[in-house]
């Protein structure tokens, strides 16, 4: 006999317990958190984008005077910091948060409250970094914050403190999210889904999270050292006091290079999912993909010195890192072969996500090839600090990462919002962005070959770089137009309310397309039984196209006509608020504020431990029961 929900020991509700604005603050739903991440990421993308436009405006012609050299350094630093830590990262966690748990057939992540706290850490970190503009000026030491440039002697202001505190919070967010995702993937897959049955994106999430956990910490420790150097007068990085400036570079790049893959793997994940879905074929070479993901994860650990070829480590060391770096091209090329094999013989539908995905393949390839060139330590002596490098990493960062993530964003947009995109608006936006991107960064490769250094705020007319720079600046503004058109397409889809069905594109292969769009609070009214490699596709081929529910006794979250839900909680917000206050205490620096923030954090953790978090039962809607 099924147990009626009313007889259970927890409250039963007809609507979710976290609706409304206060509900948004107290939510622990991975889908709402995912949307918050995406919104925040796009907001910071606009901030970082405006900074990029200022850079290109200043460099548009020789001896330009739009901004001063000092402001240029600040804008340059903020652009890199904001884009990497507060635009790309939250967009990735947003997509993963919304999609990954549904893909593996889970009702939420392993630690729902921790998930929300991760979001607050990221938001407040971004706020603190950007608040530096209004607190005595943003930092100008570069996003890599090399000492001694970032030391108290040469960056005395609040800007560098804001960088350290803000990025530290951002990294904390990444750590907590990664731990959460690893446990979710290992422990919460639906019955029948083995590790080798997971959708590709879940594998990418797992490796991204493992990389973030392992690589992030050396950088957090380095930032801690720098904080102590700045606040307590120690000399970790001061050679005069026995410290070592290269220590910062090592700790930074031990994180910094894996960070490239932490950002890139999610983009590869989106492209893999999109191409497989719209080609109507399973991903070619699934096992090779798992091997390539693992290889790239391991290799990313032994390549960091290629950022430091010119510090004088000597030939044997450099040679070892050249070999490691060049070896990365093997798993990277495997991904390209996997995608080509997936497209081969498929009937590709040229939707907007496919446009971004195919463009990503193309630009990522250029980014990889240019990377192979400067992976050579002898050649790098020429390229070090010039525009070639800027061109190279933007081919990876925008061509690879941003295009890949946009493929994912547009692909899952109907699932996340419940509304179909208007492709007639989206596609022209794509072409403007695509052409603008190539116009911006292809000339920069040539500028580098012609000897133009990077990080300089201006150049002379007779140096012969004016034409290329003008083209580059035009391209940058085209990219801005492309992004604006994309945002218009996203807004239009919400305003015109073209309802998306469960399988919005009609090509879904994994579990997220088996539930309504947008996903209900409990994801699955009944847990799905995974019977094949691609769960939904298996049912489309061998069943009636609908997921079979697992037997009632295996669906531990379901009781009668209700589903067990985690309790909403204000404690993550309290802890986050405490971290914000303590963070500003560190930035100013103001001991009272820091202690006050610390007290709020402690109270939040105490409340967290003591509050009733046993959850409640949410009654399933009739049509989904």
């Amino acid at each position, binding site marked *: 006999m099924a147990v009626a929900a009313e007889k259970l020991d927890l409250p039963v509700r007809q609507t979710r317990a976290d609706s409304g604005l206060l509900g948004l603050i107290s939510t622990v739903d991975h889908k709402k958190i995912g949307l918050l991440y995406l919104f925040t990421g796009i907001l910071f993308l606009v901030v970082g984008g405006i900074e990029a436009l200022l850079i290109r405006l200043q460099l548009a012609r020789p001896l330009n005077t739009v901004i001063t050299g000092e402001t240029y350094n600040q804008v340059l630093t903020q652009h890199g910091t904001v884009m990497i830590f507060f635009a790309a990262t939250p967009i990735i966690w947003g997509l993963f948060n919304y999609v990954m748990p549904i893909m593996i057939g889970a009702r939420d992540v392993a*630690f729902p409250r921790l998930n929300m706290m991760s979001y607050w850490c990221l938001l407040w970190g971004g706020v603190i970094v950007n608040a530096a503009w209004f607190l005595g000026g943003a930092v100008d030491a570069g996003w890599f914050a090399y000492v001694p440039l970032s030391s108290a002697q040469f960056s005395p202001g609040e800007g560098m403190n804001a960088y350290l505190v803000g990025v530290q919070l951002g990294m904390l967010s990444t750590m907590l999210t990664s731990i959460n995702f690893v446990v979710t993937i290992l422990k919460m897959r639906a019955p029948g889904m083995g590790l080798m049955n997971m959708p590709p994106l879940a594998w990418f999430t797992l490796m991204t999270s493992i990389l973030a956990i392992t690589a992030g910490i050396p950088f957090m420790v380095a930032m801690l050292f720098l904080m102590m150097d700045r606040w307590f007068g120690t000399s970790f990085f001061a050679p005069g006091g026995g410290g070592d400036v290269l220590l910062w570079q090592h700790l930074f790049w031990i994180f910094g290079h894996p960070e490239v893959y932490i950002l890139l793997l999610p983009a590869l994940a989106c492209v893999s999912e999109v191409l497989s879905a719209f080609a109507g074929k399973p991903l070619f070479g699934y096992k090779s993909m798992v091997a390539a993901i693992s290889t790239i994860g391991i290799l990313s650990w032994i390549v960091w010195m290629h950022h430091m070829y010119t510090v004088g480590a000597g030939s044997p060391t450099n040679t070892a890192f050249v070999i490691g770096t060049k070896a990365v091209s093997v798993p990277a090329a495997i991904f390209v072969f996997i995608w080509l094999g997936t497209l081969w013989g498929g009937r590709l539908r040229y939707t907007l996500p496919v446009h971004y995905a195919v463009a990503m393949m193309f630009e990522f390839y250029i980014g990889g090839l240019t990377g192979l060139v400067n992976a050579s330590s002898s050649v790098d002596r020429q390229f070090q600090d010039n525009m070639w490098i800027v061109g190279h990493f933007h081919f990876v960062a925008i061509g690879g990462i941003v295009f890949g993530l946009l493929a994912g964003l547009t692909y899952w947009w109907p699932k996340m919002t419940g509304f179909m995109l208007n492709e007639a608006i989206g596609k022209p936006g794509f072409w403007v962005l695509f052409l603008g991107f190539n116009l911006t960064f292809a000339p920069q490769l040539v500028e580098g070959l012609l000897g133009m250094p990077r990080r300089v705020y201006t150049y002379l007319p007779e140096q012969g770089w004016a034409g290329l720079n003008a083209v580059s600046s035009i391209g940058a503004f085209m990219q801005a137009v492309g992004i604006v058109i994309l945002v218009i397409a996203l807004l239009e889809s919400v305003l015109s309310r073209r309802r998306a069905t469960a399988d919005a594109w009609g090509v879904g292969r994994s579990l997220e397309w088996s539930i309504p769009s947008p996903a209900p609070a409990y994801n699955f009214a009944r847990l799905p039984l995974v019977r094949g490699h691609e769960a939904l596709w298996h049912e489309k081929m061998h069943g009636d196209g609908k997921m079979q529910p697992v037997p009632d006794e295996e669906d531990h979250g379901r009781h009668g006509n209700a589903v067990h839900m985690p309790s909403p909680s204000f404690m993550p917000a309290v802890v986050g608020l405490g971290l914000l206050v303590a963070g500003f205490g560190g930035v100013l620096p103001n001991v009272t504020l820091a202690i006050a923030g610390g007290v709020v954090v402690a109270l939040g953790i105490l409340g967290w431990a003591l509050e009733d978090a046993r959850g409640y039962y949410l009654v399933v809607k009739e049509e989904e029961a």
Partner: protein
Amino acid sequence: MTTKAEAVGHAAGHHAHAALDNLKRGVWVFLASECIVFGSLIGTYLALWGRSTSGPQPHEMLAQVLPETIVATFILLLSGFTMALAVHAVRRGNVGGLQLWTLATIVLGAVFLAFKIKDYAHLVGEGWTFASNIGATTFYTVTGTHAVHLAVGLVWLLAVLVNSLRGRYSSENATAVECAGLYWHFVDMAWMVIFPVIYLLEFAR
């Protein structure tokens, strides 16, 4: 057919059990990340070892606290043993044993922490402060981070003790104790690396 009471017990128990299962895996992953925290700190200590440009040299200072530290190290080792006994007791449903050994672990951990505080007070009293030289800075950073971890572990174990007095644990419901145990053993083992690297290496020059 299940009776109402049984079904209710099953439902609530299951959610708690699944959450604890996740918690245990989460602690493992967290401890993996903690290994890298201490790895980075100890790596930095070694990279900057012997570079102090002024002030009392580390080996002069650490020689003064070495005997106490050896005693404290044995006490911490012993606390690992009592922690293991506590987990063993709760797995066999022996809640009295759990309370006894948890209390013993807390006492031993607190004694270790008291030794550390006494050492710090002594060293600072001798004028060897946090920013005296790079040897002092890295010494205080590594051992201080360990001491903070230990203090967190003490709070955690206190919570375990309180919860066991409230009757929260049984042989079926031991995961929360196991998680605390995992963390405590990690803090123990971290010291087993820190002690030789920091205190004994100084005398190998």
